[in-house]
Protein backbone atom coordinates (compact mmCIF):
# COMPACT_ATOMS: atom_id res chain seq x y z
CA UNK A 1 0.00 0.00 0.00
CA UNK A 2 2.79 2.35 0.93
CA UNK A 3 4.47 1.60 -2.39
CA UNK A 4 1.37 2.66 -4.30
CA UNK A 5 1.27 5.82 -2.25
CA UNK A 6 4.90 6.52 -3.05
CA UNK A 7 4.38 6.05 -6.77
CA UNK A 8 1.37 8.35 -6.53
CA UNK A 9 3.44 10.95 -4.70
CA UNK A 10 6.28 10.76 -7.22
CA UNK A 11 3.99 11.03 -10.21
CA UNK A 12 2.05 13.95 -8.77
CA UNK A 13 5.40 15.54 -8.00
CA UNK A 14 6.37 15.15 -11.66
CA UNK A 15 3.04 16.47 -12.85
CA UNK A 16 3.29 19.42 -10.51
CA UNK A 17 6.80 20.19 -11.78
CA UNK A 18 5.59 20.02 -15.38
CA UNK A 19 2.64 22.28 -14.66
CA UNK A 20 4.76 24.79 -12.77
CA UNK A 21 7.37 24.94 -15.53
CA UNK A 22 4.66 25.40 -18.18
CA UNK A 23 3.09 28.26 -16.23
CA UNK A 24 6.58 29.71 -15.84
CA UNK A 25 7.09 29.51 -19.62
CA UNK A 26 3.78 31.25 -20.22
CA UNK A 27 4.78 34.05 -17.87
CA UNK A 28 8.03 34.46 -19.79
CA UNK A 29 6.23 34.50 -23.13
CA UNK A 30 3.80 37.11 -21.87
CA UNK A 31 6.75 39.34 -21.01
CA UNK A 32 8.58 38.94 -24.32
CA UNK A 33 6.83 41.70 -26.36
CA UNK A 34 7.84 44.38 -23.85
CA UNK A 35 11.50 43.54 -24.43
CA UNK A 36 11.43 45.32 -27.77
CA UNK A 37 11.31 48.54 -25.79
CA UNK A 38 14.52 47.57 -23.96
CA UNK A 39 16.74 45.86 -26.53
CA UNK A 40 19.87 46.59 -24.51
CA UNK A 41 18.93 43.96 -21.93
CA UNK A 42 18.71 41.33 -24.66
CA UNK A 43 21.94 42.42 -26.34
CA UNK A 44 23.87 41.92 -23.10
CA UNK A 45 22.45 38.42 -22.76
CA UNK A 46 23.18 37.56 -26.40
CA UNK A 47 26.76 38.42 -25.56
CA UNK A 48 26.92 36.01 -22.64
CA UNK A 49 25.05 33.09 -24.23
CA UNK A 50 25.95 33.64 -27.90
CA UNK A 51 29.28 35.37 -28.33
CA UNK A 52 30.92 33.45 -25.51
CA UNK A 53 29.68 30.13 -26.97
CA UNK A 54 31.07 30.99 -30.39
CA UNK A 55 34.53 29.51 -29.93
CA UNK A 56 33.40 26.08 -28.75
CA UNK A 57 30.79 25.89 -31.52
CA UNK A 58 33.27 26.84 -34.24
CA UNK A 59 35.92 24.38 -33.05
CA UNK A 60 33.37 21.59 -32.61
CA UNK A 61 31.98 22.28 -36.09
CA UNK A 62 35.42 22.03 -37.66
CA UNK A 63 36.22 18.74 -35.95
CA UNK A 64 32.83 17.18 -36.60
CA UNK A 65 33.08 18.08 -40.28
CA UNK A 66 36.59 16.68 -40.50
CA UNK A 67 35.78 13.39 -38.83
CA UNK A 68 32.61 12.96 -40.90
CA UNK A 69 34.59 13.46 -44.10
CA UNK A 70 37.29 11.07 -42.94
CA UNK A 71 35.02 8.20 -41.96
CA UNK A 72 32.53 8.89 -44.75
CA UNK A 73 35.34 8.70 -47.28
CA UNK A 74 36.38 5.24 -46.06
CA UNK A 75 32.84 3.94 -46.46
CA UNK A 76 32.19 5.58 -49.82
CA UNK A 77 35.55 4.65 -51.34
CA UNK A 78 34.59 0.98 -51.11
CA UNK A 79 31.85 1.64 -53.65
CA UNK A 80 33.90 4.04 -55.76
CA UNK A 81 31.48 6.77 -54.78
CA UNK A 82 33.94 9.31 -53.31
CA UNK A 83 32.16 12.04 -55.25
CA UNK A 84 29.16 11.66 -52.96
CA UNK A 85 31.28 12.69 -49.97
CA UNK A 86 30.10 16.30 -49.96
CA UNK A 87 26.49 15.23 -50.15
CA UNK A 88 26.74 12.79 -47.29
CA UNK A 89 28.62 15.21 -45.02
CA UNK A 90 26.22 18.06 -45.78
CA UNK A 91 23.06 16.00 -45.35
CA UNK A 92 24.16 14.58 -42.01
CA UNK A 93 25.30 17.96 -40.70
CA UNK A 94 22.36 20.00 -41.92
CA UNK A 95 19.62 17.58 -40.98
CA UNK A 96 20.78 16.10 -37.70
CA UNK A 97 24.22 16.76 -36.30
CA UNK A 98 24.27 20.53 -36.73
CA UNK A 99 21.25 21.36 -34.58
CA UNK A 100 21.78 18.51 -32.11
CA UNK A 101 25.48 19.00 -31.38
CA UNK A 102 25.09 22.77 -31.22
CA UNK A 103 22.19 22.24 -28.85
CA UNK A 104 24.18 19.91 -26.60
CA UNK A 105 27.13 22.32 -26.54
CA UNK A 106 24.80 25.23 -25.92
CA UNK A 107 23.19 23.39 -23.02
CA UNK A 108 26.58 22.66 -21.51
CA UNK A 109 28.12 26.05 -22.17
CA UNK A 110 25.28 28.56 -21.88
CA UNK A 111 22.47 26.64 -20.17
CA UNK A 112 24.54 25.66 -17.14
CA UNK A 113 25.86 29.21 -16.78
CA UNK A 114 22.33 30.62 -16.95
CA UNK A 115 21.03 28.23 -14.29
CA UNK A 116 23.98 28.90 -11.97
CA UNK A 117 23.68 32.67 -12.42
CA UNK A 118 19.96 32.79 -11.69
CA UNK A 119 20.24 30.24 -8.89
CA UNK A 120 22.95 32.34 -7.24
CA UNK A 121 20.87 35.49 -7.68
CA UNK A 122 18.11 33.75 -5.83
CA UNK A 123 20.42 32.36 -3.13
CA UNK A 124 21.82 35.83 -2.47
CA UNK A 125 18.30 37.30 -2.34
CA UNK A 126 18.81 39.54 -5.36
CA UNK A 127 15.57 38.36 -6.91
CA UNK A 128 13.69 38.99 -3.67
CA UNK A 129 15.28 42.44 -3.52
CA UNK A 130 14.00 43.22 -6.98
CA UNK A 131 10.51 42.21 -6.02
CA UNK A 132 10.74 44.55 -3.02
CA UNK A 133 11.53 47.38 -5.43
CA UNK A 134 8.46 46.43 -7.48
CA UNK A 135 10.62 45.18 -10.35
CA UNK A 136 9.35 41.90 -11.77
CA UNK A 137 12.38 39.59 -11.95
CA UNK A 138 10.75 37.60 -14.72
CA UNK A 139 10.48 40.70 -16.85
CA UNK A 140 13.90 42.08 -15.97
CA UNK A 141 16.06 38.93 -15.58
CA UNK A 142 14.38 35.86 -17.05
CA UNK A 143 12.69 37.06 -20.23
CA UNK A 144 15.79 38.73 -21.77
CA UNK A 145 17.80 35.54 -21.21
CA UNK A 146 15.09 33.43 -22.81
CA UNK A 147 14.88 35.67 -25.87
CA UNK A 148 18.67 35.79 -26.16
CA UNK A 149 18.83 31.98 -26.21
CA UNK A 150 16.09 31.90 -28.83
CA UNK A 151 18.05 34.30 -31.06
CA UNK A 152 21.52 32.89 -30.45
CA UNK A 153 20.81 29.20 -31.14
CA UNK A 154 19.85 29.50 -34.86
CA UNK A 155 22.85 31.76 -35.47
CA UNK A 156 25.22 29.37 -33.69
CA UNK A 157 23.77 26.39 -35.55
CA UNK A 158 24.21 28.09 -38.92
CA UNK A 159 27.81 28.88 -38.05
CA UNK A 160 28.35 25.27 -36.94
CA UNK A 161 26.96 23.93 -40.23
CA UNK A 162 29.08 26.24 -42.36
CA UNK A 163 32.19 25.32 -40.36
CA UNK A 164 31.48 21.58 -40.65
CA UNK A 165 30.77 21.59 -44.39
CA UNK A 166 33.07 24.38 -45.50
CA UNK A 167 36.71 25.14 -46.04
CA UNK A 168 37.99 24.24 -42.56
CA UNK A 169 36.05 21.06 -41.90
CA UNK A 170 34.70 18.53 -44.37
CA UNK A 171 36.01 20.36 -47.41
CA UNK A 172 39.52 20.49 -45.97
CA UNK A 173 39.71 16.75 -45.27
CA UNK A 174 37.72 15.67 -48.32
CA UNK A 175 39.21 17.86 -51.01
CA UNK A 176 42.60 19.00 -49.72
CA UNK A 177 43.68 15.86 -47.87
CA UNK A 178 41.84 12.94 -49.47
CA UNK A 179 41.72 14.36 -52.97
CA UNK A 180 37.98 14.37 -53.75
CA UNK A 181 37.21 16.62 -56.70
CA UNK A 182 36.23 20.09 -55.43
CA UNK A 183 33.51 20.56 -58.04
CA UNK A 184 32.01 17.16 -57.27
CA UNK A 185 31.99 18.03 -53.58
CA UNK A 186 30.06 21.27 -54.08
CA UNK A 187 27.81 20.05 -56.89
CA UNK A 188 26.68 17.09 -54.86
CA UNK A 189 25.83 19.38 -51.97
CA UNK A 190 24.00 21.92 -54.09
CA UNK A 191 21.89 19.41 -55.95
CA UNK A 192 20.89 17.46 -52.86
CA UNK A 193 20.31 20.10 -50.17
CA UNK A 194 16.95 21.75 -50.66
CA UNK A 195 16.40 25.20 -49.25
CA UNK A 196 12.75 24.74 -48.41
CA UNK A 197 13.30 21.52 -46.54
CA UNK A 198 16.85 21.27 -45.26
CA UNK A 199 17.86 24.86 -44.58
CA UNK A 200 14.56 25.91 -43.04
CA UNK A 201 14.75 22.73 -40.98
CA UNK A 202 17.95 24.11 -39.39
CA UNK A 203 16.13 27.22 -38.20
CA UNK A 204 13.08 25.35 -36.96
CA UNK A 205 15.08 22.74 -35.08
CA UNK A 206 17.60 25.14 -33.58
CA UNK A 207 14.86 27.59 -32.57
CA UNK A 208 12.97 24.83 -30.78
CA UNK A 209 16.17 23.59 -29.12
CA UNK A 210 17.14 27.11 -28.04
CA UNK A 211 13.73 27.57 -26.44
CA UNK A 212 13.94 24.21 -24.67
CA UNK A 213 17.45 24.81 -23.31
CA UNK A 214 16.86 28.31 -21.99
CA UNK A 215 13.45 27.34 -20.62
CA UNK A 216 14.95 24.46 -18.64
CA UNK A 217 17.89 26.60 -17.51
CA UNK A 218 15.93 29.58 -16.25
CA UNK A 219 13.31 27.36 -14.62
CA UNK A 220 15.91 25.29 -12.81
CA UNK A 221 17.79 28.39 -11.69
CA UNK A 222 14.67 30.25 -10.63
CA UNK A 223 13.32 27.37 -8.57
CA UNK A 224 16.63 26.16 -7.13
CA UNK A 225 16.85 25.81 -3.35
CA UNK A 226 18.78 28.88 -2.13
CA UNK A 227 21.83 26.91 -1.03
CA UNK A 228 25.15 26.15 -2.65
CA UNK A 229 24.03 22.54 -3.06
CA UNK A 230 20.77 23.68 -4.60
CA UNK A 231 22.61 25.79 -7.16
CA UNK A 232 24.91 22.95 -8.08
CA UNK A 233 21.96 20.59 -8.45
CA UNK A 234 20.11 23.10 -10.63
CA UNK A 235 23.15 23.36 -12.90
CA UNK A 236 23.46 19.59 -13.25
CA UNK A 237 19.73 19.16 -13.78
CA UNK A 238 19.79 21.78 -16.51
CA UNK A 239 22.45 20.01 -18.54
CA UNK A 240 20.90 16.55 -18.09
CA UNK A 241 17.27 17.51 -18.71
CA UNK A 242 18.03 19.89 -21.57
CA UNK A 243 20.27 17.34 -23.33
CA UNK A 244 17.70 14.56 -23.08
CA UNK A 245 14.89 16.91 -24.12
CA UNK A 246 16.89 17.97 -27.18
CA UNK A 247 17.47 14.39 -28.26
CA UNK A 248 13.80 13.52 -27.79
CA UNK A 249 12.59 16.64 -29.56
CA UNK A 250 15.02 15.96 -32.41
CA UNK A 251 13.51 12.53 -32.98
CA UNK A 252 10.01 13.99 -33.10
CA UNK A 253 10.98 16.91 -35.34
CA UNK A 254 12.82 14.61 -37.74
CA UNK A 255 9.83 12.27 -37.85
CA UNK A 256 7.52 15.16 -38.68
CA UNK A 257 9.77 17.11 -41.06
CA UNK A 258 11.09 14.22 -43.12
CA UNK A 259 8.08 11.91 -42.90
CA UNK A 260 7.37 12.20 -46.62
CA UNK A 261 10.73 10.77 -47.61
Amino acid at each position, binding site marked *: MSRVLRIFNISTGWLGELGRSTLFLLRILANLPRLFLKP*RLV*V*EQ*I*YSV*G*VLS*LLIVVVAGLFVGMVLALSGYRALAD*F*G*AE*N*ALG*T*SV*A*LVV*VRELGPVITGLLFAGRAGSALAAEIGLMKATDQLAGMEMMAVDPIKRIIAPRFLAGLI*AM*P*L*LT*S*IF*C*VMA*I*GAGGGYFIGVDVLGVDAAAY*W*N*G*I*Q*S*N*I*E*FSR*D*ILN*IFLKSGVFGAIITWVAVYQGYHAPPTSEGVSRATTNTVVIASLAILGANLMLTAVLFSGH
Partner: protein
Amino acid sequence: MQSRAVELLVGLFVCLGIAAIFILTMRVSDLANTSDVQGYTVTAAFNDIGGLKVGAPVDLAGVRIGRVTDIKLDQQTYQAVASIRISDQYKIPKDSDASILTSGLLGDQYVGIGPGGSLKNMKNGDKFVITQSAVVLENLIGQFMTSMNSGSSDSGSSGGGGGGSSSGSNDLFGHSGDSHSNGNQSPAGAATSSNAQ
Protein backbone atom coordinates in the same frame (compact mmCIF):
# COMPACT_ATOMS: atom_id res chain seq x y z
CA MET B 1 32.79 51.81 -22.46
CA GLN B 2 32.31 48.24 -21.34
CA SER B 3 28.78 48.00 -22.72
CA ARG B 4 29.95 49.55 -25.99
CA ALA B 5 32.43 46.68 -26.47
CA VAL B 6 29.66 44.21 -25.68
CA GLU B 7 27.42 45.80 -28.28
CA LEU B 8 30.21 45.63 -30.86
CA LEU B 9 30.86 41.97 -30.17
CA VAL B 10 27.18 41.11 -30.33
CA GLY B 11 26.94 42.98 -33.62
CA LEU B 12 29.87 40.97 -34.93
CA PHE B 13 28.26 37.75 -33.74
CA VAL B 14 24.97 38.53 -35.46
CA CYS B 15 26.84 39.46 -38.64
CA LEU B 16 28.70 36.15 -38.54
CA GLY B 17 25.46 34.27 -38.03
CA ILE B 18 23.74 36.05 -40.88
CA ALA B 19 26.75 35.43 -43.10
CA ALA B 20 26.52 31.74 -42.23
CA ILE B 21 22.80 31.71 -43.06
CA PHE B 22 23.57 33.46 -46.34
CA ILE B 23 26.23 30.88 -47.22
CA LEU B 24 23.89 28.04 -46.36
CA THR B 25 21.18 29.56 -48.51
CA MET B 26 23.14 30.68 -51.53
CA ARG B 27 26.05 28.24 -51.67
CA VAL B 28 24.98 25.04 -49.97
CA SER B 29 21.32 24.71 -50.88
CA ASP B 30 19.76 24.16 -54.28
CA LEU B 31 19.08 27.89 -54.62
CA ALA B 32 22.68 28.16 -55.82
CA ASN B 33 21.67 26.35 -58.99
CA THR B 34 18.97 28.78 -60.00
CA SER B 35 21.30 31.76 -59.96
CA ASP B 36 22.53 31.44 -63.55
CA VAL B 37 19.31 32.42 -65.26
CA GLN B 38 20.83 33.96 -68.41
CA GLY B 39 20.41 31.88 -71.50
CA TYR B 40 17.92 30.26 -73.83
CA THR B 41 15.64 27.34 -73.08
CA VAL B 42 15.26 24.24 -75.22
CA THR B 43 13.32 21.08 -74.51
CA ALA B 44 14.06 17.40 -74.94
CA ALA B 45 11.59 14.53 -74.65
CA PHE B 46 12.79 11.25 -73.21
CA ASN B 47 11.05 7.89 -72.87
CA ASP B 48 12.67 7.43 -69.47
CA ILE B 49 14.64 10.03 -67.60
CA GLY B 50 15.74 7.64 -64.85
CA GLY B 51 16.97 9.66 -61.90
CA LEU B 52 17.46 12.97 -63.68
CA LYS B 53 16.53 15.86 -61.43
CA VAL B 54 15.87 19.57 -61.82
CA GLY B 55 19.20 21.33 -61.51
CA ALA B 56 21.18 18.53 -63.13
CA PRO B 57 24.07 19.73 -65.32
CA VAL B 58 24.00 19.74 -69.12
CA ASP B 59 27.37 18.93 -70.66
CA LEU B 60 28.82 19.11 -74.12
CA ALA B 61 32.16 17.36 -74.49
CA GLY B 62 32.47 17.43 -70.73
CA VAL B 63 32.02 21.20 -70.50
CA ARG B 64 29.01 22.42 -68.54
CA ILE B 65 26.88 24.55 -70.83
CA GLY B 66 23.60 24.66 -68.92
CA ARG B 67 21.21 23.11 -66.47
CA VAL B 68 17.92 21.22 -66.41
CA THR B 69 15.34 23.75 -65.24
CA ASP B 70 12.11 21.76 -65.37
CA ILE B 71 10.85 18.21 -65.86
CA LYS B 72 7.25 17.51 -66.88
CA LEU B 73 5.25 14.58 -68.17
CA ASP B 74 3.69 14.99 -71.62
CA GLN B 75 0.18 13.53 -71.25
CA GLN B 76 -0.16 12.92 -75.01
CA THR B 77 2.98 10.93 -75.65
CA TYR B 78 3.70 9.77 -72.08
CA GLN B 79 7.22 11.05 -72.43
CA ALA B 80 9.16 13.07 -69.90
CA VAL B 81 9.92 16.55 -71.23
CA ALA B 82 13.00 18.17 -69.73
CA SER B 83 13.49 21.91 -70.14
CA ILE B 84 17.14 22.79 -70.52
CA ARG B 85 18.56 26.26 -70.10
CA ILE B 86 21.79 26.81 -72.01
CA SER B 87 24.03 29.83 -71.51
CA ASP B 88 23.90 32.40 -74.30
CA GLN B 89 27.60 32.04 -75.02
CA TYR B 90 27.16 28.44 -76.20
CA LYS B 91 25.58 27.89 -79.61
CA ILE B 92 24.73 24.33 -80.53
CA PRO B 93 23.63 22.99 -83.95
CA LYS B 94 19.93 22.44 -84.52
CA ASP B 95 20.26 18.68 -85.10
CA SER B 96 22.21 17.95 -81.92
CA ASP B 97 21.17 15.00 -79.82
CA ALA B 98 20.59 14.77 -76.08
CA SER B 99 21.17 11.70 -73.96
CA ILE B 100 20.94 11.03 -70.25
CA LEU B 101 24.22 9.78 -68.86
CA THR B 102 25.55 8.90 -65.44
CA SER B 103 28.74 10.34 -64.03
CA GLY B 104 30.65 7.35 -62.78
CA LEU B 105 29.03 4.08 -61.84
CA LEU B 106 26.80 5.39 -59.09
CA GLY B 107 27.00 9.14 -59.64
CA ASP B 108 24.32 11.67 -60.44
CA GLN B 109 22.69 11.70 -63.84
CA TYR B 110 23.21 14.51 -66.29
CA VAL B 111 22.28 15.42 -69.85
CA GLY B 112 25.02 14.98 -72.43
CA ILE B 113 24.71 16.87 -75.73
CA GLY B 114 26.20 15.43 -78.90
CA PRO B 115 26.72 18.20 -81.48
CA GLY B 116 25.11 17.72 -84.89
CA GLY B 117 26.25 18.96 -88.27
CA SER B 118 23.60 21.55 -89.08
CA LEU B 119 24.61 25.09 -89.93
CA LYS B 120 21.64 26.52 -88.05
CA ASN B 121 21.85 26.90 -84.31
CA MET B 122 19.25 26.12 -81.71
CA LYS B 123 17.22 28.99 -80.37
CA ASN B 124 14.78 29.55 -77.55
CA GLY B 125 11.92 27.04 -77.53
CA ASP B 126 13.52 24.53 -79.89
CA LYS B 127 13.30 20.81 -79.31
CA PHE B 128 15.89 18.05 -79.49
CA VAL B 129 14.77 15.60 -82.18
CA ILE B 130 17.16 12.80 -81.29
CA THR B 131 17.21 11.77 -77.65
CA GLN B 132 18.47 8.78 -75.79
CA SER B 133 16.85 7.75 -72.53
CA ALA B 134 18.56 6.88 -69.30
CA VAL B 135 19.96 3.41 -68.93
CA VAL B 136 18.04 1.76 -66.14
CA LEU B 137 20.21 -0.80 -64.44
CA GLU B 138 17.36 -3.21 -63.70
CA ASN B 139 16.22 -3.28 -67.34
CA LEU B 140 19.78 -3.86 -68.44
CA ILE B 141 20.19 -6.73 -66.03
CA GLY B 142 16.82 -8.13 -67.13
CA GLN B 143 17.90 -8.07 -70.76
CA PHE B 144 21.21 -9.60 -69.82
CA MET B 145 19.49 -12.36 -67.88
CA THR B 146 17.04 -13.23 -70.67
CA SER B 147 19.79 -13.35 -73.25
CA MET B 148 21.95 -15.44 -70.95
CA ASN B 149 19.11 -17.80 -70.11
CA SER B 150 18.21 -18.37 -73.76
CA GLY B 151 21.89 -18.91 -74.49
CA SER B 152 22.33 -21.51 -71.75
CA SER B 153 19.16 -23.41 -72.70
CA ASP B 154 20.44 -23.59 -76.27
CA SER B 155 23.77 -25.06 -75.30
CA GLY B 156 22.22 -27.60 -72.93
CA SER B 157 23.88 -28.21 -69.56
CA SER B 158 27.31 -26.81 -70.29
CA GLY B 159 27.30 -24.09 -67.59
CA GLY B 160 27.12 -25.64 -64.13
CA GLY B 161 26.07 -22.49 -62.25
CA GLY B 162 23.97 -20.97 -64.96
CA GLY B 163 21.86 -24.10 -65.36
CA GLY B 164 19.66 -23.42 -62.31
CA SER B 165 16.02 -22.34 -62.53
CA SER B 166 15.77 -19.07 -64.40
CA SER B 167 13.39 -17.42 -61.95
CA GLY B 168 15.72 -18.12 -59.06
CA SER B 169 18.78 -16.58 -60.66
CA ASN B 170 16.73 -13.65 -61.89
CA ASP B 171 15.63 -12.95 -58.36
CA LEU B 172 19.19 -13.15 -57.15
CA PHE B 173 20.37 -10.56 -59.63
CA GLY B 174 17.42 -8.30 -58.95
CA HIS B 175 18.31 -8.33 -55.29
CA SER B 176 21.93 -7.50 -55.83
CA GLY B 177 20.94 -4.54 -57.97
CA ASP B 178 18.60 -3.37 -55.24
CA SER B 179 21.17 -3.52 -52.51
CA HIS B 180 23.51 -1.50 -54.68
CA SER B 181 21.09 1.35 -54.94
CA ASN B 182 20.42 1.20 -51.23
CA GLY B 183 24.06 1.27 -50.29
CA ASN B 184 24.45 4.40 -52.36
CA GLN B 185 22.60 6.66 -49.97
CA SER B 186 23.32 10.13 -51.12
CA PRO B 187 22.67 10.63 -54.82
CA ALA B 188 18.94 10.26 -54.93
CA GLY B 189 19.42 9.13 -58.50
CA ALA B 190 19.57 5.45 -57.79
CA ALA B 191 16.78 5.62 -55.22
CA THR B 192 14.39 7.43 -57.53
CA SER B 193 15.24 5.22 -60.45
CA SER B 194 14.24 2.19 -58.42
CA ASN B 195 11.09 4.01 -57.37
CA ALA B 196 10.27 4.74 -60.97
CA GLN B 197 10.23 1.06 -61.75
